[in-house]
């Protein structure tokens, strides 16, 4: 690709590359499919008010909305769904619809409508990332959009006020999280060993809820009980988003998933073994190994896409 693709999105915080759900979806998919995109945060620009986020700019044309951007990336041959069967593709569509219908209203409510969260977390964050005088306008506008969306889609005629709808949307969201947890099971990704677009969508929806420090959130407490979803988010963050350009420390502790074949297993089981590639392998638990890396390791991208295989027990 001669020309680079530029993505305009909200900036990152709380350990995430972006705090905005749709932007996270696109960023995650780009990482999964290997597309190189330059990320331009719209923080502190006037685009916070005028732009629709996220937005992909390529050779003069702009594409908005995650579904359209993903379609565009697929057409440019960055396809993370290549190995999915037809039925898995159908399941992807169904689960994405489930997320949109059941989880999104509750997430909108948690971040934008709930008074405590909005006053203590969301509004200060978005206001601090918008230039003067937009910092007075941008959070309010988003909050109004969120509230009207919840009321129009979920508030049927006797439930015109937000308080009556709250109970219903939170119970539906908790059920949705439970369903996702059941579907994910013990695997690292939803389909097989490689991430695909469904993983990107689930990550985009769940990661802000997982990482943000919300003052009051029953939904976040519910998520804390679902270990596999938290592990899912952490795993994607560590495996695909761990190389932040700002990091300068020579020794980075990188947790990776590693495909261990027979000959490698025998080398891993010793504690503190130093592999010729230049990183220290440390056994954390029975099934997880940590790699202490030096700078050279960051170039070994292939390790990020491997899948863990349970180490066989050995008497080391």
């Amino acid at each position: 690709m001669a020309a680079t693709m530029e993505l305009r999105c909200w900036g990152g915080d709380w350990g995430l590359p972006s705090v905005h759900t749709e932007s996270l979806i696109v960023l995650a998919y780009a990482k999964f499919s290997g597309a190189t995109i330059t990320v331009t945060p719209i923080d502190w620009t006037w685009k916070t008010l005028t732009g629709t986020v996220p937005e992909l700019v390529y050779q003069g044309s702009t594409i908005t909305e995650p579904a359209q951007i993903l379609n565009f990336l697929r057409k440019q041959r960055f396809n993370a769904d290549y190995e999915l069967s037809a039925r898995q593709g159908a399941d992807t569509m169904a689960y994405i619809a489930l997320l949109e219908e059941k989880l999104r209203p509750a997430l909108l409510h948690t971040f934008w409508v709930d008074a405590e969260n909005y006053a203590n977390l969301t509004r200060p964050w978005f206001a601090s990332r918008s230039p003067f005088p937009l910092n007075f306008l941008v959070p309010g506008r988003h909050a109004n959009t969120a509230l009207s969306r919840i009321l129009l889609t979920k508030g049927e005629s006797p439930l015109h006020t937000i308080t009556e709808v709250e109970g219903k949307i939170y119970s539906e969201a908790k059920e949705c999280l439970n369903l996702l947890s059941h579907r994910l099971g013990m695997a690292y990704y939803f389909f097989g060993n490689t991430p695909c677009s469904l993983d990107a969508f689930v990550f985009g929806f769940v990661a802000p809820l997982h990482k943000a420090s919300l003052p009051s959130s029953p939904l976040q407490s519910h998520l804390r009980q679902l270990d596999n979803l938290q592990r899912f988010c952490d795993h994607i963050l560590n495996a695909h988003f761990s190389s932040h350009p700002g990091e300068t420390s020579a020794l980075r502790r990188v947790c990776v998933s590693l495909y261990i074949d027979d000959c490698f297993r025998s080398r891993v089981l010793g504690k503190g073994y130093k592999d010729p590639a230049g990183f220290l392998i440390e056994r954390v638990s029975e099934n997880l190994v940590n790699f202490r890396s030096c700078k050279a390791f960051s170039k070994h991208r292939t390790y990020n896409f491997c899948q863990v295989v349970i180490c066989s027990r050995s008497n080391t």
Partner: protein
Amino acid sequence: MSLAAEAFVSQIAAAEPWPENATLYQPLREDQILLSDCASSLAVQAYLRMCNLPVHVSCRSNAEYMSPSGKVPFVHVGNQVVSELGPIVQFTKAKGHSLSDGLDDVQRAEMKAYMELVNNMLLTAELYIQWCDDTTATEISRPRYSSPYSWPLNQILAYQKQWEVRRKMNAIGWAGKSLEQVYEDVSQCCQALSQRLGTQPYFFNKQPTELDALVFGHLFTILTTRLTSDELGEKIKSYSNLLAFCRRIEQSYFEDSQAGSSSRGYSKGPSLF
């Protein structure tokens, strides 16, 4: 309804068996009912027939206003009124009739996901075509929706409903879509359903579930309803296993009501038979 009230109602529901005089209310079949309402109503009827629960269908022009949530259809069972497929499924489950008990957790997750897909894509597309497409709205939706009322009430109600639906489309981001994009979305949704169904008789195992009822309701209504253009029906007809699926359910569950099944809604088009 708050959660505590819902739990209380389902407790009361569990106490009594399904009565003989249960009634389902929908708008007038020949003149008033629209595509989306007809689809929802047919889905509920199919579900109740699959559960072997008798219900009498009653057409009223003010069904929408009688409904507790403002949406049709709703059923009047004993001294309770429940509207929409989701709550009705829960209500019948409280009474001990359920189609999805045999599913494990992962399958139940899939079933809910596919039901949301149908609601998200097919139902929204139906609403869009009815109310946001000017030709259809002017020629079909507004006249039909307000047919029981006299002037000026019919104009006011029709435009009010259209404004409401357009606001909702704005909120979920469908307002910017063109008609071709909506048809394309319907086609993708049908493709997903067709791939999930494959060669099986029903979506899960050999027994129908509420997902089958919902899909049947929407697809059958679209196929047997004449709109300003036949493109929607054509999209579905290109998937032969979905056609066979609709035919199978119609034969298995609607065979006994001979005259009713093939002239559902306001169809002047061909039935599936």
